[in-house]
């Protein structure tokens, strides 16, 4: 399919804007990110796991490695893994996609390596449950109940298994933080988890945690791009309303629609 020219131009403009902000941030410009309570809670939950001596569970979702939600989830996992190693908390990772195993494995090992404790790294803490949603849910439910995890983090793309996992986590008394951009799974996480990050907050999470200037710049660029989109929507809606009320809609709107749809 050929995307319309308006979409191509808008997509290019957004990409340029986001990269420009990343580069500006790298040069030292300081950008502000608003507070996200769900991410603040991660630190607290790892602390609680330390006190109870129970492990934490991290799930980067059901998506493949070409899914941006999975990549965002893994970026958050890097931070959580390091904090777990620092606080001597065992971290269990539940994987659905085979290709993600090696990435998760590397991230977990990297966290131990950075703290100089490679010998404590256990590859068997990365569990592969398969792509089937039922199998994955059954595997995660098993881990949650057997290991009596102190905290569970669900960061990525999910299907119907969200409620099965999160509700079980709730029953075993785990503090749960979830983040997904899958609209229909958000209500389930909201019901069953203590903290839920909605939509874009998933992509901002790693920047918020790491405070890496480039990532922070990216989040700032993404907010700016969203503001531009919002302005276009509002302007378009007002213009459309005015044209419809003034009776000029047919004459003016159709050519505009034609240009945008080309």
């Amino acid at each position, binding site marked *: *399919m*050929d*995307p319309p*020219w308006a979409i*191509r131009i808008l*997509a*290019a403009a*957004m*990409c340029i804007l*986001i*990269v420009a902000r*990343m580069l500006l941030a790298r040069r030292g410009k300081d950008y502000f990110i608003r507070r996200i309570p769900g991410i603040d809670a991660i630190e607290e939950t790892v602390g609680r796991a330390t006190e109870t001596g129970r492990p934490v569970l991290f799930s980067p979702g059901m998506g493949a490695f*070409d899914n*941006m*939600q999975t*990549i*965002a989830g*893994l*970026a958050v*996992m*890097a931070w959580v893994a390091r904090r777990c190693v620092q606080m001597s908390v065992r971290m269990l990772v539940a*994987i659905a*996609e*085979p*290709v993600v195993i*090696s990435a998760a494995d590397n*991230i977990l090992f*990297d966290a131990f390596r950075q703290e100089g404790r490679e010998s404590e790294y256990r*590859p*068997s803490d990365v*569990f*592969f449950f398969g792509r089937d949603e*039922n199998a994955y849910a*059954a595997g995660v439910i098993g881990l949650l109940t057997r290991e009596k995890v102190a905290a569970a983090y669900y960061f990525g793309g999910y299907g*119907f298994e969200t*409620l*099965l996992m*999160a*509700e079980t986590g709730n029953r075993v008394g785990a503090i749960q933080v979830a983040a997904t*951009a899958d*609209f229909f799974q958000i*209500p389930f996480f*909201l*019901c*069953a988890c203590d903290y839920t990050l*909605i*939509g*874009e907050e*998933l*992509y*901002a999470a*790693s920047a918020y945690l790491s405070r*890496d200037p*480039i*990532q922070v710049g*990216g989040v700032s*660029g993404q907010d700016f*791009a*969203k503001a531009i*989109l919002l302005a276009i929507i509002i302007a378009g809606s007002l213009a459309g309303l005015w044209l419809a009320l003034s009776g000029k809609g047919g004459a003016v709107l159709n050519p505009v629609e034609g240009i945008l749809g080309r």
Partner: protein
Amino acid sequence: MRRWQRSLIFWFTFGFGLVWILAFFLPSEIGGGFDSEGVFGPSLLGKRLYYSTGKRPFIAMTDLDHTAVRQKAFGLSPFRKSDYNGAAEPEVYETPQGLRMLYLGVGADFAVRVCMATSADGTDWSPSWEPVFDPGSDAPILAGSSMSLSLDKRRLYTVGIEKGRSVIRSAVFDGGAWHDEGIYLRLQEPYAAISFAELPEGKALVVADSPGVPAFLAVIENLPLQASISVSPSPLFDKLKPAFLERARAISTAVDGGLLRVLIEGNGPDGRSRAALLQGTSLENLTLASGQPDGSVFAIAPPGRTTYFNDWAGTLSDFVPIVSAFGFGLGLISLVVVHGKRIGKGGEPAFLSGLVLIAVAAMLMTQVAFVYSGMPDGGIWYELNQILFYRLQFPLGSTLFGLLAAYLVSAAYRAFRIRTLDAAVLAAMAAFIILTQVPTAQFLASLFSPGLVDAGARLDSAAVEGRNWALSIANDAVQRAVGFGAFVGAIAMAMRVWLSLDRFGSE
């Protein structure tokens, strides 16, 4: 990680992404669109048009009323040998088991075979791993030829060349498989058939072509013919061929509710690839059903200069399933390592882990043996597949899915505890949505007086309007807001990965 390793990863990621980005941003006239080469061998089912694309063709689809964008029906896979080098000439039809699509697959050995894809909704198609009909190595050359189905969908025609002459072969479906019937029709020189379609009452339409002569449509009567025949332009030709089609290339026919539908595909004088749809109760009273300003139902720009980015992007995408296939090995190793260690430790977990490994081995062995034995309809591997897959895994999956019902109740109980104003609004809205699913007001009114039932019905009707507003306006606006944010966030994430600016916290 060493500097050269990081550099290699950066340039690989950057190059891979750049090809996709250029394929997206550049217009089809210079190589961006997947069907810029034209529309080939279209097939119509209802209002949905299926067709094959140009280079390394694959099957694409769109709707005649333009309610759906042009999209792939299914992609080519480097693991599927039957259509490794392309899929073309789709023929779609309905069966009691769902939709079926027969198409010509150009295999890894460049031989052309008839393959099949299945679908429940006409959008998500699953191609079969093996061809359904192989004309064999001594059969006429089929490459570049046309395929069509009889009106009752039980006979398959393939157009090819044998000893320099056009031949139409047929295969018949006996309920389980397609069987070759041999030559159905031979055409005498000087014309060559390029497309063949059956008509009611033992007639057929042929698109005939010859060097130096414009392609024309011919009507053949009293089929099947054993002897070779000579075709000439039909008197109906001028009537059938719309003015916007200078050169007809392919034809397909279907009878839909007593209505004969003839779809002709070809090129216009401006080089645009177009499809015309003629409909009527018989061949004599066909009329043009147009959807485009020029009278066609589908028109696409002529191929222009190409930057080949789209082709390269398609070829590069072959890389993804190959990596995924290796990933499965990783998954298997991870599974064996994790459960092997637990078996080594002993105790109750060891028993369960042993069970997991036995189940994996049994399923793997059964599936491999079942596929390699040609997926027969009986025998030990078939039975084992039925037991493990349909009588064990499916019910287990359904059981787990059934747990959702119980979990929904407990989650809803927590969600609807009214502690704040937000929770009160949420609970009220939920109650309203639930109550408007049934005629609550009518029921309540009937408890008091039968005369109030009409008033209750009017109240129910107004409530349904309110429910629809909540679901389609308020809820839709929220969905789009979340979708917008996620979309922009995904772009930002993609840019960070593409430019290797995100290192997952390492270093």
